[in-house]
């Protein structure tokens, strides 16, 4: 298990990646602070504060971009800059790639949890069921990492893979109808409800808030099923590329 000894350095690298910290931690915190000032005191028809919904959506939406670190490290270590060094290193490269995937997902999850803690401690937001929310953050982090690994292994050019991962993140945010209402069409309606990991996980958390555990498990399990489906795809593509 020589790969285990590299895990420490992967984590150190993740923690020193200031640009990722800025984009996935500082930006959401700044945005949430601004939103909490703007939306303070406003409630929707059901009497819940608007800010609850915004905070939940933002915490989960930023997980869509969490896979970008996994992608850039895989590219740097196994396909580009350090490729030759890693080829002569006496360890299993597939396992190393897998350790990056795990570490990257865990890091993304931790950032999500940190944002949640910030909204609780500083902005005073009460999460109805924080354990369940954390579970969905974890699912989203793993899903995004897997998708990004598929992109980086499936596409020859890294910059194309990067653009694709942006399309994945921004696309699902747009499809969820957060920026403007989507047209009334069966395809858009599906992609704005059961075909969209973001709306699924938001829906799962909202369902728990009103005590509907059946619906919550149903929506969360769809995300889990997507992970279960994409994981073998990722294995096949990754093995083909790493050979």
């Amino acid at each position, binding site marked *: 298990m020589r790969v285990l000894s590299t895990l420490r350095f992967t984590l150190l690298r993740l923690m020193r990646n200031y*640009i990722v910290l800025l984009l996935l931690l500082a930006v959401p915190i700044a945005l949430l602070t601004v939103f909490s000032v703007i939306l303070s005191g406003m409630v929707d028809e059901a009497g819940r504060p608007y800010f609850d919904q915004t905070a939940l959506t933002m915490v989960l939406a930023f997980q869509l971009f969490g896979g970008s670190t996994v992608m850039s490290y895989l590219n740097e270590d196994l396909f580009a800059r350090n490729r030759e060094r890693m080829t002569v290193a006496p360890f299993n490269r597939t396992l190393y790639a897998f350790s990056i995937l795990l570490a990257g997902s865990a890091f993304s999850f931790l950032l999500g949890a940190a944002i949640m803690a910030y909204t609780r401690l500083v902005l005073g937001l009460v999460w109805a069921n924080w354990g369940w929310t954390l579970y969905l953050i974890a699912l989203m982090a793993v899903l995004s990492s897997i998708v990004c690994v598929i992109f980086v292994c499936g596409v020859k050019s890294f910059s194309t893979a990067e653009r694709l991962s942006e399309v994945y993140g921004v696309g699902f945010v747009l499809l969820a109808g957060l*920026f403007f209402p989507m047209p009334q069409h069966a395809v858009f309606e599906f992609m704005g409800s059961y075909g969209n990991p973001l709306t699924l996980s938001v829906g799962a958390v909202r369902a728990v808030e009103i005590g509907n555990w059946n619906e919550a498990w149903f929506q969360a399990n769809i995300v889990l099923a997507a992970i279960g489906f994409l994981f073998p795809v990722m294995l096949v593509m990754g093995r083909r590329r790493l050979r």
Partner: protein
Amino acid sequence: MTIFYFTLKRSFANLANLIFLTAAPIACIFLPAGEGWPPLAYGYAYFGIVILFVAIRLAQIMMEDRVKGILKRLSVAPVRYFSYLGQHLLAYAVILILQSAVVVLGGWIAGQELHRPWALFALYVSFSFAALAMALAWISVFRSKDAAFLFYMSLIVLAALLGGIILPLEIFPDLLRRIAVILPTFWFAEGLKSIASAQPFADNVRINATLCLYALVFLVLGSTRRMQ
């Protein structure tokens, strides 16, 4: 005008840029209109954010020149720095003006409610100048291309939110509303509002002049630094 010609060519050289420069404005034409907010259809408010992104992506070409040392070679060539900068900015301005024309003309053909297309076009052009000058000033501070872009990206999101492009300024607390006035995005949102509510012509002129003033200030800031 050799530099101008090659800058135009370079701007469209890579596929991502080509798609971004052509597809984003076209997508803006077809976004739906909201109920009461924003004043024009969604695409016409978000086109301001697109302009900011396009400006930084284009200005990065100049940054690449500086980082790779092309600017050093140019300094021994019989080209004045002023003409290098001028022709680059002209090329970017042409691209942005064309995009604005596409968005306004396309909306007019597609039957979007634009109220006063000419005033809208003028607003986009003056905002483009301001965005370009800001991008120029921004890249002159940075050394790494990625860092410059990603930092700027986060600032764009914040400025768009605080300037009143994403959410109506009326729901903001008093303090934030007053601070918003210093952001160029505020003046852009203000311009859209004034076009939609058929304010007198002088109001449009005032807003465009403010945006041009931003352009001038940032142009001066951004063009002072030449090399390294």
